[in-house]
């Protein structure tokens, strides 16, 4: 317990003194997860919305695949990306293994099904009468689609936040494909693992506090966007 208390106060000190090592890790985490989230959102929201609105026969199969993707174990994603990017893999020529690019690829694979699947569910929950009503008011197809997306903004924001939560806190995939290299691929979660193993509890707790703070800020932002605060 003393260790925890001491570690917690040291962590506060590290955060308040803007410790460079701490902030380098935080910045890299935000950069990797931010880029991965941007890509997942750019792909996932339109695809999820299209699936939610479509009446294609294959929608059931695509939905099942998407929901399976939402439950993908990150370490399995890491293994898959590792094999794809390793020297003998089909994308080995990119030399992305143990770089932040590999981590972004892994995180996109984790976040995309979450963003697309939850967007799809949100779009499906919109009252079908809304589309008829806006068409009756003179909406074009695109205006109709936009109206549906605006009505589902709460669900879409939740989908994006869920995607962010899924990748900022995962450790297995980024550890495998990034390698936890100091200054290059060390992010919050992998740094916590390393510092715990080496007994650097203060830094580990500080990183944990930052991780929790990021999750808190993301959720407050979501609630604000939802207009519920």
């Amino acid at each position, binding site marked *: 317990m003393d260790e925890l208390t001491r570690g917690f106060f040291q962590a506060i000190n590290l955060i308040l003194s803007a410790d460079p090592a701490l902030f380098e890790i935080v910045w890299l985490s935000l950069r990797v997860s931010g880029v991965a989230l941007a890509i997942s959102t750019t792909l996932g929201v339109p695809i999820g919305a299209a699936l939610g609105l479509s009446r294609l026969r294959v929608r059931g199969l695509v939905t099942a695949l998407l929901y399976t993707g939402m439950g993908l174990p990150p370490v399995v994603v890491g293994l898959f990306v590792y094999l794809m990017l390793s020297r003998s893999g089909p994308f080995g020529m990119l030399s992305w293994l143990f770089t932040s690019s590999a981590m972004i690829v892994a995180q996109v694979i984790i976040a995309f099904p979450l963003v697309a699947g939850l967007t799809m569910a949100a779009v499906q929950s919109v009252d079908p009468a809304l589309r*008829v*009503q806006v068409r*009756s*008011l*003179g909406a*074009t197809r695109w205006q109709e689609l936009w109206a549906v997306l*605006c009505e589902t903004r709460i669900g879409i924001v939740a989908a994006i936040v869920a995607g962010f939560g899924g990748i900022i806190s995962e450790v297995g995939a980024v550890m495998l494909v990034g390698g936890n290299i100091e200054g290059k691929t060390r992010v919050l979660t992998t740094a916590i693992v390393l510092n715990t193993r080496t007994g650097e509890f203060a830094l580990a707790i500080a990183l944990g506090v930052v991780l929790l703070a990021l999750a808190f800020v993301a959720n407050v932002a979501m609630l604000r966007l939802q207009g519920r605060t």
Partner: protein
Amino acid sequence: MSEPIYQIENLKKEYTGRVVVDIERLEIYAGEIFAVVGPSGAGKSTLLRMLNFLETPTSGHIVYRGRTFGKNGDVPLEVRRQATTVFQRPVLLRASVRDNVAYGLRLRGERGDGRVDEFLARVGLDAFARASATKLSGGEMQRVALARALVIEPTVLLLDEPTANLDPYNVGLIEDIVREQNRTRGTTIVLVTHNVFQAKRLAHRVGLMLSGRLIEVSDTSSFFDSPSDARTAAFVRGEMVY
């Protein structure tokens, strides 16, 4: 009588082989209030959706202001935008009352702030302009839906059971607005209702629909006082007619 704005010829709509609308001929005149009455499931709402070009007929066609639209014809946006529907259940956007009323104008790239204010006042909701539309009562929501439809100044206003489930105060208010819109702006109004008294109060002409077919169409006084069809007579007497 003015020029027909709609001419319906051999209009048929089927869903999975079941005929829900089958109208040989019907003319709706510019500037009139035409009421379609009939029991639930008679095909009234489907007819209204076809008049708003929200559904295409299975066969036959609708001539709107001299232009013919059938099962294959794409209806141009400028034609579609001349008519709008107020449905029985108002579907409002998750936005303020003002934004809801302004929605149709925004779709057309217009702001029309003055008109929005005017119609908010007409439906008695100017004090609620900034309120969340989805938190209003049923009657207030329907008044928002009516203002939203009127603010775009449609040539044709289609009303699908607009006062069903509303209290008498809101029914009276909505009927007054509809009557005034027709009288002062010449808007053609097609009203679908199972309430014969409302049809009697508002319409210039009334048609009875049963099982997708138009049984009788006549001016309001003839329809109620001297119907030519026994089923019309029974319906206006309040008897069960199928």
